[in-house]
């Protein structure tokens, strides 16, 4: 059988071309432009190489871009913990011994299909200090002292973002965990029961080791989502109050809007390096898994 004829390379060339042209090439261009003073006035003044000046500015300027980078990393770590841990227990709870679990799953998954812009707008209303649903609910429940200025208080605003993000994402993470749980043979739990294992021991020695695949998928999507986060921050706070909730992508958009393209691509390039590092780590683990399985 002639593999070359049966599996022609032009099949693969089509998606590869698009992928390279509109995905990879702009990233590489970005690396190049990050060493220039590219901006809205370039058409008049010409393009000049400035070496590492953009990067220098990112890490030293009073604009606090460094804080934006730190916020991105922090968001990636915390948002994943806040979603993965509760979602795991939810999945275990929903897996059996419950009537109509299909309906619960459908409802809990629903937020993750909605556009971020919509979620942002809904929560601009829900978290409204004066009349929002959350504060009204707290007052009604006699918990009025917990009322907060959810989106304008420096100390709670990140909590609000994590909360809204979890509201959206937990159902998605849970669904993947449920699929993993369903693939675990029942005998394993029976064997563990006979050995007298309690809930935590079953979790530690049966469930988690058997769910490596599901955990991996959740981590891959969770990490890449976290590093690239934009919409939810942009719509909920637009980086504010002040610059407290600024992340790499929001700074990058601001710089783009104010015509400082070189700076904007420099920030993008930093994000590229961070995601590449995370990606290489994950792909390594994944390909090791595949050779193990073979």
């Amino acid at each position, binding site marked *: 059988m002639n593999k070359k004829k049966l599996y022609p390379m032009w099949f693969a060339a089509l998606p*590869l071309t698009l992928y390279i042209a509109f995905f990879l090439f702009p990233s590489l261009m970005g690396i190049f432009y990050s060493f220039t003073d590219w901006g809205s006035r370039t058409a008049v003044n010409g393009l000049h190489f400035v070496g590492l000046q953009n990067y220098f500015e990112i890490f030293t300027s009073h604009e606090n871009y460094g804080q934006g980078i730190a916020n991105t990393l922090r968001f990636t770590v915390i948002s994943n913990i806040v979603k993965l841990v509760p979602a795991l227990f939810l999945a275990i709870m929903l897996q059996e011994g419950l009537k109509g679990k299909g309906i619960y799953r459908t409802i809990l998954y629903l937020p993750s299909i909605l556009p971020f*812009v919509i979620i942002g707008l*809904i929560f601009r209303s829900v978290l409204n200090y004066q009349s929002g649903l959350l504060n009204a609910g707290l007052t009604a429940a006699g918990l009025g002292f917990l009322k907060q200025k959810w989106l304008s208080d420096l100390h709670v605003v990140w909590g609000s973002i994590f909360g809204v993000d979890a509201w959206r994402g937990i159902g998605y993470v849970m669904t993947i965990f449920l699929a993993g749980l369903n693939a675990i043979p029942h005998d394993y739990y029976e064997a563990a029961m006979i050995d007298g294992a309690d809930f935590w021991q079953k979790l530690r020695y049966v469930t988690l080791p058997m769910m490596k695949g599901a955990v991996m998928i959740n981590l891959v999507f969770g990490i890449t989502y976290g590093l690239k986060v934009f919409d939810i921050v942009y719509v909920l706070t637009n980086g504010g109050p002040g610059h407290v909730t600024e992340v790499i992508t929001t700074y990058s958009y601001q710089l783009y809007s104010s015509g400082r393209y070189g700076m904007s*691509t420099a920030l993008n390039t930093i994000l590229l390096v961070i995601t*590449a590092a995370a990606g290489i780590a994950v792909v390594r683990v994944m390909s090791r898994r595949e050779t193990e399985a073979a």
Partner: protein
Amino acid sequence: MKKKRIRFVLKTAVSLFLCSFVVLPFYMVFINSLKTRGEAARMSMALPAEWLWENYLIVIREGRLAQGFASSLCYALSSTSLGVLLSAMGAFVLSRRRTGFHNFLYYFILSGLFFPVNYVTLVRLFQWLHLTNTRLGIILVFTSAMIPFCVFTVYSFVQSVPVQMDEAAVIDGAGAVHLFFRIIFPLMKPTLITCFILQFMGVWSDFLTPLYLSSKSRLFPMTMAVYQFFGKNKSYWNYIFADIVLTCLPVVIVYLVGQRYIIGGLTTGAVKE
């Protein structure tokens, strides 16, 4: 068995409690979308004093929603169809050939799962290619962005299709195109539908791409239209809520219809071990 009963009641209570967190905001949005401006500003859960269904008509007119809907549909349908088809072709060939070079290409595409799109330089590239403010440009960007995920999903599916299928087809005299479109493609259908639904919803929800790449409001998809409307009418929560309902509706329908495919698709990879 008493213990089992208690656990059942407890689980049901917890599940209902959690679901209420999802449902209540939707209820609040919907009920307030039918109120007057003053009533809606209070954002209460009470029924409207007067059911103002005409709020929806006003929003459709003022918020340019028909245009936004048409744009969203155009972007989502064309980029998803193109992206899924091309990814399926690519994944099929890469998964069958499997030399070192093809493996490299596979991981090369897969790396796109991680990388961020650089929109700033994309704007520049669009100027060179005369794609600035064109639907074609936006569609091509969406298409390219979904290729890594679709190739990833289809690739692992192709591995489960026995090579003997291909051999039998060759003996019957099939060529590459015939083999793929007549024999492999129908087998892939469930996987492709999954990719299609997930990516369709992804494009529908996307905000960043049109934010950078379209400066003309006639190109705005619904997400941009609703955000712009919000910016202009910040105190008209009744209209904003109506706008939210209308923007959600299409994705919610796609979700409810295609639900089993979504779950199926998310689980590829999750249950491989």
